[in-house]
């Protein structure tokens, strides 16, 4: 296993994290026009989290809540159009010109994809938590249940 908690590896991953986040962001924002999208972006982020957890670095908590939030966002996008009298899951697109990026087109699809990212990320965290449970990662990974339970108290 990658249970190797040497400083070198930890530093490497620490350095790689921002890079991976950039990649994920690109995949996410570019998804509507090039290969990529929320799912791919989420998986890349998830991979970072997985590596961080394997080497004892901190990871996001409350995966289930994170996923619920993602689901609620998507549900909101789905229901939104109904409020203004449109069809379920109708799409709205805004086009503006920004200083650096030039002409930018963004739509509710982007919000939708953001929900997907949250869900995928949450799934990876939950999975690592569960698969590693009882094993050596137990001490380094803050588990969902315990995290949530503390939050309740």
């Amino acid at each position, binding site marked *: 296993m990658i249970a190797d908690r040497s400083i070198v590896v930890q530093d490497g991953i620490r350095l790689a994290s921002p890079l991976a986040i950039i990649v994920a962001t690109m995949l996410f924002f570019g998804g509507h026009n090039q290969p990529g999208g929320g799912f791919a972006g989420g998986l890349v982020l998830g991979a970072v989290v997985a590596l961080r957890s394997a080497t004892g670095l901190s990871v996001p908590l409350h995966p289930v809540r994170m996923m619920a*939030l993602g689901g609620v966002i998507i549900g909101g996008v789905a*229901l939104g159009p109904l409020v203004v009298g449109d*069809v*379920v*899951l109708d*799409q709205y697109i805004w086009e503006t010109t920004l200083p650096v990026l030039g002409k930018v087109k963004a739509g509710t699809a982007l919000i939708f994809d953001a929900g997907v990212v949250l869900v995928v990320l949450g799934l990876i965290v939950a999975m690592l938590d569960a698969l590693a449970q009882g094993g050596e990662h137990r001490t380094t990974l803050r588990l969902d249940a315990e995290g*949530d339970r503390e939050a309740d108290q």
Partner: protein
Amino acid sequence: MSVLVGLAVIVPLLAAMVSLGVRRHAFLRDTVVLGSLVGVTVMSAVLLIQVEANGSLVVRVGGWLPQLGIVLVADMFAVLVLSVAMVTITLVEAFSIGQRRSTAGADPTVAAPMLMVLTAGVALSVLTGDLFTLFVAFELMLVASYVLLTHKGQAGQVRSGMTYVVINLFASTLFLFGVAFVYSATGTVNLALLVERIPELQTEVRWGIGLWFLVVFGTKAAMFPLFSWLPDSYPTAPTTITAVFAGLLTKIGVYVMIRFHTLMSMDDLGTVILVIAGFTMIVGVLGALAQDDMKRILSFHIVSQIGYMLMGLGLFSVAGVAGAIIFVVHQIPVKTVLFLVGAMVETDRRSSALSKLGGLVSSRPWLAVAFALPALSLAGLPPFSGFVAKLALIDAGVEAGTVAIVVVGLVGSALTLLSMVKIWAGVFWGPQNAPAFHAPESEEWAPRSATARGWSTMSLATGAAVALTLAIALFAGPLWDMSERAATELLDGEVYVTDVLGSER
């Protein structure tokens, strides 16, 4: 009004997510879940009235043309099944709120959100007009059921959960292959377009597709010989969960089968379906007779009753399909309420094994009534809903001159009665056996008032469910008219096509 069609799908999905977010806050969670269930129930009732009066409602999700996007179709068949299903789920959720303090119950922090996911899957399966969305809807239902079945992680549940998950995953894979077949043959997954294109296919391809989806839906519906996973897995779940499974999952499989095979004019597979139907009826009920546990008997019955629905489909006549539809409508609450009674017995006596039960007719007379009414309905005795459904099917069989299946159906219903007698004698008659567990030892029974209140909530929900089954018998007239209309629409795919594709064709 068509806004309700979309809401019926999105609201449960959203409620699942919200309730998951607040899953550890019991009051909020229960409010969200029960509130949205009641909401969806009301919506589906309104839809039923609307569709009855004005015909199908079609929603193009995201505003895309049916050739490209997904459509939701609320036709007579859909809203009929949707309404019954939603009322039933609501009652089960109310019941499970009462059952919280029993260890037999599900863990609400998991069960409540998952029940909403399941609800969403049911609503989407029923309403969708798209073959692939149907796959997604099935997965929603199934993944929720996987979690509901195994979430307590007990040995029996994990063991049977594996059987359940593996078989259903396999069926899902077959489903995807089926989608691939259909898409490469027709270039679409929209059901209305398929109604136009599939009859144009070479006969063998049509048969192949029909048979393949018979296997796919048949596995979900637990038809012979693909049923064996069901009686192994259902009884191990917390009983309220089983109640939902029993009432809904297989019925949705049948629902989809009826929808697909009638709309796609698979009449020439009728004989195959009838043969399967006969075997399903008999093997299922024989399985029930062989069991010594209330939940297992009832689980095998699910299989047997599926055979009757298949019989109606296999006749491919308006009378037959309408019979199958009213059978589905009657089975959903009847099967659920039987398991709810099972849950109450289990809560009361700590067991569902016939050998450990007995004498409840004296100690719990109302429970006996609550069991007897749906049980008689299940056996097809008048004046209960099952009688109308059985009569419709047998009548259709007599009309079609298919004597063999009629005889098998009648024999099956005699055996059904025998197995109901077995439960009745084992659970409600006989000497009152001592409870398997002693109340004082298990903490959760210590607060007497809490028990009593939980019990009365459970009783109320069960009573309401019994009332629902009686109401179905009482309003069998209008229900039959609706079933007949639904069957006519299904067998004449033209109505469906016009509703969905409209003037764009």
